[in-house]
């Protein structure tokens, strides 16, 4: 059977992904690296994107889905603007990480894995960032915050939210 030309949805996100896929065609086994890039572009991996990757790389969709669901890093659902990743590794556990998770769930009103209604935060957990000396730690987006307790963790989230609100307010003012 002749391979069908893959339709590229006409938007910059897909074009960027296509460029990356084209560049990695010579590399054997590029699927995981492609998915890394796709998630960076889209924020998560909706089924359409998986379809696109499958067709582009000429592998079954089932295989793409299998890989996406195997690794912790890949997400099937949209996420908030900021990701709160609480470490539940052994060292953090000993230092009371589960207390912090409980406090964060209460503060944000979502369970682990959930996204707040305003899509600002997604609460997630991870197994050890390798920053155990600072236990307990959480990663807020790309930044590690260590030596936490429930109050401190909540404070970090509130501060970030406040900063975002301020920035938004300043922007509307400027527009006016």
């Amino acid at each position, binding site marked *: 059977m002749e391979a069908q030309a893959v339709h590229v949805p006409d938007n910059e996100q897909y074009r960027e992904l296509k460029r990356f896929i084209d560049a990695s065609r010579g590399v054997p086994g590029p699927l*995981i690296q492609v998915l890394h890039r796709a998630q960076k572009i889209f924020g998560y991996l909706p089924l359409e994107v998986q379809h696109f990757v499958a067709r582009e790389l000429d592998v079954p969709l089932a295989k793409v889905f299998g890989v996406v669901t*195997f690794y*912790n*890093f890949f997400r099937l659902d949209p996420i908030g603007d900021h990701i709160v990743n609480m470490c539940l590794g052994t*060292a953090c556990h000993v230092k009371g990480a589960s207390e912090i998770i409980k406090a964060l769930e209460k503060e944000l009103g979502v369970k682990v894995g959930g996204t707040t209604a305003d899509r600002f935060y997604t609460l997630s957990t991870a197994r*050890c960032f390798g920053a155990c*000396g600072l236990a307990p730690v959480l990663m807020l987006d790309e930044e590690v915050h260590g030596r936490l307790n429930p109050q401190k963790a909540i404070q970090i989230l509130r501060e970030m939210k406040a900063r975002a609100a301020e920035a938004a307010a300043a922007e509307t003012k400027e527009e006016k």
Partner: protein
Amino acid sequence: MSVFRTHVLLPVDVGTAQAGVFEVKRRLEKELSVRQMLDEVKVLESGTVGIVGKGVILAVYPDRMYYFNVREADVPRIVDEHLLKGRVVAGLDHAAIAVSPSVPGPKVGLTRAQRRIVLDKAWTVDPENIDEIIAAGGYRGLERILREALPPEAVIEEIKKSGLRGRGGAGFPTGMKWEFTRKAAGGEKYIVCNADEGEPGTFKDRLILEGDPHRLIEAMAVAGYAIGAGRGFVYIRGEYRLSIDRLQKAIAQARQYGLLGNNILESGFSFELEIRKGAGAYVCGEETALIESLEGKRGNPRVKPPYPVTHGLWQKPTAVNNVETLANVPGIMANGADWFRRIGTDKCPGTKVFTVLGHVEYPGLVETDMGTPLREIIFGFGGGVKGGRKFKAALLGGAAGVFVPEKLLDVKMDFESLKENKAVLGSGAVLVMDETASVVEMLFSIAKFFAHESCGQCVPCRVGTRQILDIAWRIRQGHGRAGDAETMLQLAETMFKTSLCPLGQSLVMPVRSALENFAEEFALAAGQAGKA
């Protein structure tokens, strides 16, 4: 080129970055500029010292003085007092840097003397500057091999003679692994570095990569030369952003200097190195799962044999080595096997990087001789149990590790001695628990971890981890039943005998050691159920 009279080193790692090392650096440069001292004092970012929880650390050379918990506001004082007048700022938390066992230093804590091989440059050079690395002796091992045109077999012989064993946990002799790969049939071969450091409580590989990425590049090139591989892959945790960044930069620099790529040092030997990011799966630390993942698939472990040394990446002969293992190679090639053998124990020569964590005064990383007693690591380097509380247990080797009671504190930390005492070295993690910590709780946490990370491919592991988790949960909740401990142990032992890969095989270690050494605690937890 200007000659600086003083160097100020600012170790950058996750901890110091959070504590504000970059603010301190900016302020330092500003204050030096104001005093027109920029051509006298050089400010450098270095890799980690391995001390955590001490805020921003600032080291002054050649005075060999550390300052801890440095705040931006302290900078003018350090400049005026120390850098200008050469007086130690007494009001700040400081300690003399111990350089070698022969120079007396502090008796406890992570600043006391450590013999460092894999981390010897990590804290004194700028990891992003290849010139500094080369000046400090980097790439000397590779250079020696290529200049003397040593046959690959001789390189393997040297590694075998050194007695280097895998630092990823299993302790397999590295030279033998290389020899098998070299002798395997087939033209195309690969060297793979396992930097998917996922064992809870372990971050030694991260600090090696952040502090001295060129060491790994050199080692991989040497390994490639020895086994006959023209290509190497570093499979690294996606979360290790700084490591990935620095390694990427280092690879580019090495290529520019002709230390990677075509015809290295005009020897005719060519070697390419690529980074592959992992996507978060503990099981990918197992070598065949890692290979599957490198091929872009789900990280399901393969059935062994055949082993990767004959059928590895894309079914080609492949040597998979841990970061710390490889990091030992340049030193051995530069200084010879005999030098290496003089360190550590007879059967486990060399050093080991430990991460000391949990309830200790000074959590962090320490590199010391193989065979150093556990007591020395916890009470010497770690400064003892935090707050003067009583020692209860240490979990050695991460989640796939062993609970060690007080009576084993004098065990020597090397593969053989630990094995004799039914313990393991594993990844080198030493998690200290004081009298307030609960082993029942810890075992529950470990069971949860394993149940979550089991890949589900083989039945014993998929079902066994879940069953053990249920029992551990029950005991923790105070609903333990008669015979629970025995059932849990039996399950774990069955998993040990029947699971496909080390993930399922290793849960027996924490389970057995917890039940054997802390039986009373489990009985008590179960007993409370009886009363309730």
